[in-house]
């Protein structure tokens, strides 16, 4: 008995003695840098290639990575946050940057810029500004994209309809969608016009935004533009120029391969600009797609803006923040790394990288680069990051209580818009 107890005690003591010593040794020689991101298989492959390059140059830094799909990512990271084992670097999204920062989970990157670890001199102020909250940088944008109407050029030709003007209005959009449907018998536009991102940028056309700058209330006074917009959607559904809610349910969860634009069931679709790569690939050889501005209100502002497609942020639970900044710096500035990454995360933010990539660009990449240049010339200023509570508004109010009941005809757009304002304000008021 006694000897057994003694043995256990000795073992415990030994472990207790050895454990800190072991970690002390490894801290000097080798460190583990943890990183997480979401994305497709394509993104995983490219990112892992860059991680290998970084490890070759910094053999003492072992980069441990974990990735998942968008849906699982936030569950995973939120659980990690509550267990206080967030990775050193996490991929962040514009929709969540503010919420995470407000809960002290993200560390400012400014000290690393000051001490030269992180070089952001190649990033334009506008783009860099999207990662700032107040005056501090909480996420470095990795690429840019913008909302777009994807257009099947050949179908327009077949219908004998001219391509729309770059600054087309929603009235033009309605007319063209109806004409395309009439000529070709397919949907003029086959996508979710009720998407929450379109609600937000709708008000950009009127010089405001879905939320006020403080994120404490809805940012517009007048519900009428939203009501008019949904009236238009209902008219187009009635004319069978766009899919009804019932029909769209079949397509909502399909990837690019099953999208009506790809299968030739529609002439236009709504996507983020970097997704033209996936669409073109899914459609196969011989199809031609172009990126177009979102329509805007008559005489209104452009509804497009340059959006950071995603960020890298250093978390406050990082064990090696300095090395994390080193990795981010390598990721955005190193030319070899850029070759591996390409435009998969959107158009690269560093000017020198864009120039470096230019000679090897594919026609689709060129279309994407051009489109973003057009949006930069004719776009609205970047709106503030989504306020805390945005996810709840989107999941519990906008889609289930506003869009669905309106599109299925249970309530009128006017009733819906009033309810949306009231319910969203209740949630946003918590940010006061």
């Amino acid at each position: 008995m006694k000897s057994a107890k003694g043995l256990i005690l000795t073992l415990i003591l030994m472990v207790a003695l050895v454990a800190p010593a072991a970690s002390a040794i490894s801290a000097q020689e080798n460190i583990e840098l943890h990183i997480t991101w979401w994305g497709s298989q394509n993104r995983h492959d490219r990112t892992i290639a860059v991680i290998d390059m970084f490890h070759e140059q910094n053999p003492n830094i072992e980069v441990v990575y974990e990735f998942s799909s968008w849906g699982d990512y936030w569950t995973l990271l939120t659980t990690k946050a509550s267990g206080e084992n967030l990775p050193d670097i996490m991929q962040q999204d514009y929709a969540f940057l503010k919420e995470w920062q407000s809960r002290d989970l993200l560390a400012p990157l400014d000290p690393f810029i000051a001490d030269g670890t992180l070089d952001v001199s190649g990033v334009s102020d506008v783009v860099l500004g999207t990662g700032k909250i107040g005056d501090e940088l909480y996420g470095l944008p990795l690429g840019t994209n913008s909302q777009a109407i994807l257009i099947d050029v050949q179908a327009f030709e077949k219908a004998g309809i001219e391509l729309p003007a770059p600054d087309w209005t929603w009235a033009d959009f309605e007319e063209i969608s109806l004409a395309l449907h009439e000529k070709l018998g397919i949907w003029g536009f086959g996508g979710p016009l009720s998407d929450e991102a379109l609600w937000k940028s709708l008000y950009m056309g009127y010089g405001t935004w879905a939320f006020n700058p403080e994120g404490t209330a809805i940012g517009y006074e007048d519900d009428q533009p939203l009501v008019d917009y949904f009236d238009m959607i209902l008219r187009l559904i009635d004319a069978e120029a766009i899919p009804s809610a019932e029909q769209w349910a079949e397509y909502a969860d399909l990837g690019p391969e099953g999208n009506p634009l790809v299968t030739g069931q529609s002439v236009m679709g709504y996507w983020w600009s970097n997704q033209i790569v996936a669409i073109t690939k899914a459609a196969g050889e011989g199809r031609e797609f172009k990126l177009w501005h979102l329509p805007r209100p008559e005489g209104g502002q452009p509804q497009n803006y340059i959006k950071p497609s995603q960020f890298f942020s250093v978390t406050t639970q990082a064990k090696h923040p300095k090395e994390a900044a080193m990795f981010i710096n390598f990721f955005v500035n190193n030319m070899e790394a850029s070759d591996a990454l390409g435009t998969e995360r959107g158009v690269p933010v560093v000017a020198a990288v864009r120039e470096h990539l230019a000679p090897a660009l594919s026609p689709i990449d060129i279309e994407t680069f051009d489109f973003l240049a057009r949006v930069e010339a004719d776009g609205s200023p970047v709106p503030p990051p989504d306020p805390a509570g945005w996810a709840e508004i989107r999941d519990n109010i906008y889609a289930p209580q506003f869009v669905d009941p309106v599109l299925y005809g249970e309530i009128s757009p006017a009733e819906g818009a009033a309810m949306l304002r009231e319910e969203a304000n209740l949630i946003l008021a918590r940010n006061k």
Partner: protein
Amino acid sequence: MSNSALPATLVGSKRRVRARHWRHSNLAGYLFISPWLIGYLLFALMPILASLMLSFTNYDVLGHNILRGDWDFVGLDNFEKMFYHDYRYWKSVKATLNYVVFAVPLRLMFALAVAMLLNTKRHGVYFYRAAYYTPSVVGGSVAVALMWREIFQRDGLVNNILGTEIYWFGNPDYAMWVLVTLAVWQFGSPMLVFLAGLRQIPQDMYEAASIDGANFFQRFWRITIPLLTPIIFFNLVMQTINGFQQFTQAFIVTGGRPLDRTLLYPLYVYNRGFVSFQMGYASAMAWVLLVTIAFFTLILFASSRLWVYYQGDEGKS
């Protein structure tokens, strides 16, 4: 042990020896069940109690450490919000009741029908018993749910067979049937119980009835059903509890859409807890579900006196 200690032990009363023996054998018992016990305490009882506590808080996971306690007790706020201010809550209650009312009886009827088919002495009946049980083994799985999505698609198997063009997932009136048929198809475990019950019914009763000229339906209604009521009752209770807890199918096949018509209660709990991260609120919802299930189970038990017939019970009452 040293020799000098021996006499002391011998002097000690028999009782003490027995007590020590008892303690030893108990200890061995606890050791044997310790893997289960630890699992139960750590992964069942503790989370259950924690969720009860959380249901009175505003705990929301993100950046809040549950052990450090940076959350507040909010009293009955979660319950008040649920009952009076959550539009989707009542939609999910309605969807769940809808589901249970249709899926459970249909599944039981189907299970009984199949069990009666398999309760025959035919060649290869053992093979069929195993084969018909398979859907239930794999039924809760993601793969089957995905398959269900495929066959109910617009150009899928169901529309082809029916010759229809129904948007099963988009039509608010039809979407629930996708889930109900999936539930019916997973008839295996009640079927097995029915089969065991059917084999308990003495054959001579059927023979006697046949001789008296009873046809199949008369035998079914007068012999099979009455003698099977305890089994039906057991299956009804188990399947009702099970029906209230359905998650996977709704999560994968319909996602609660359209118009929240298939937003089964556990799916809404999940959405609140793991999508919106309102753990306090989700915990409160989960406890209401627990009470609801207990309530329905009690009603079923109370009703059983009226319709469940236990053989050999006659003398008691």
